[in-house]
Every structure is written in structure tokens, then in C-alpha cells.
């Protein structure tokens, strides 16, 4: 899984049927210190994440599909599976 910050969401009427009722979130992968890392991606929400939340994103098809739609086998490659409260980094 990766850490990401929720930037916002995307609205699409015409989409794969398995995306029905899903929230398509725009997220920016981040480093543990909060700085952006790499390109922004879209992930389906499974935990009611909101804008500016730090979240955990799974980037594996079976898990992403099952977490966000309840069934495997959908064309979904990323899903938000958790909202981070805080991160304790061991700096020693």
C-alpha cells in the first residue's frame, strides 16, 4: 500500500458498470513527511475519505476491486482502504 493525500474527486457519467455508485477520488501519492511523490492517480473510495485526508491506497486489482465494490473482477487498479490518523516515524 502507499500513502496519499486526497486532492478531490472526479465525476463521470459514462463509465464501466462496476463503477456505479463508487466515489472516484483524485489522490496524490506522498512521502511519509507529506511531500508529493510522483504523478497523481485515481482511486475508488471504500472508507468515506474526504478532501485533504491522508489515506492508505492499495494498488492491486483483486484487493482494490473487492474493497471498493465488494466483488473481485472489476477493472479497478487502486482503492482507498484507510484514513491515516497519524504516522509515528522512528528517527533513531
Amino acid at each position, binding site marked *: 500500500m502507499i500513502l496519499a493525500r486526497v486532492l478531490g474527486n472526479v465525476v463521470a457519467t459514462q*463509465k464501466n458498470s462496476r463503477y456505479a455508485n463508487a466515489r472516484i477520488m483524485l489522490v496524490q501519492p506522498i512521502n511519509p513527511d507529506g511531500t508529493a511523490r510522483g504523478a497523481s492517480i485515481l482511486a475508488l473510495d471504500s472508507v468515506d475519505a474526504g478532501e485533504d485526508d491522508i489515506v492508505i491506497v492499495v494498488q492491486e486489482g483483486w484487493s482494490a476491486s473487492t474493497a471498493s465494490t465488494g466483488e473481485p473482477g472489476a477493472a479497478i487498479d487502486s482503492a482507498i482502504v484507510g484514513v491515516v490518523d497519524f504516522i509515528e516515524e522512528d528517527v533513531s
Partner: protein
Amino acid sequence: MQLARVIGNVVSTVKNNALLGRKLLLIQVLDHELAASGKPLVAIDSVGAGTGDLVFWCRGKEASFPFEGSEVPTDCTIVGIVDSESHVKFAARGKKL
């Protein structure tokens, strides 16, 4: 999934049988500001997208799932058309991250 703009059609006559009848499109991957990011890709369409459309696409093995029943060899499939540019919503729009 990532945002992309459809920038062209790809025509191929000799191809894998499972690709017969599939629409191949050239897409440019975009970032959240809708600026080009990374390289153009060849994608298979599953939602009726066309040149100029703002779309999102799925990568990897999951990309073949919209065509369940036929083993379509693809790692990049368009799975949705964004309603308009203003339907990419975020508070920080315009601000650099």
C-alpha cells in the same frame, strides 16, 4: 487509474484475434491539473470514448476485465469518460503542490 486525454486513433490490421473489433486509442496521461504527464499510451476503449475526450484508464491485468469472456491482451483500458474538465474537482486547483 489515471486521467488522460484521447489524442488519436490507432489503426492496426494484423493483430491478436481477441483484439478484433476493439477500438485502439492513443491517450496522453494527465496530472490533476490536466497537464500532460509522462508518455502517450495505446489504450483499448470500453466506454465509447473518442478523440478529445477527458477519460480515465485502468492499468495492469485489471484492464482486461471489462471484456470478460474474451481474453483481451491489454494493460491499458479506458473505463470512464469524465463529464467535463470542471468535473475534476479539488479545492487546491491552481495551486502547485
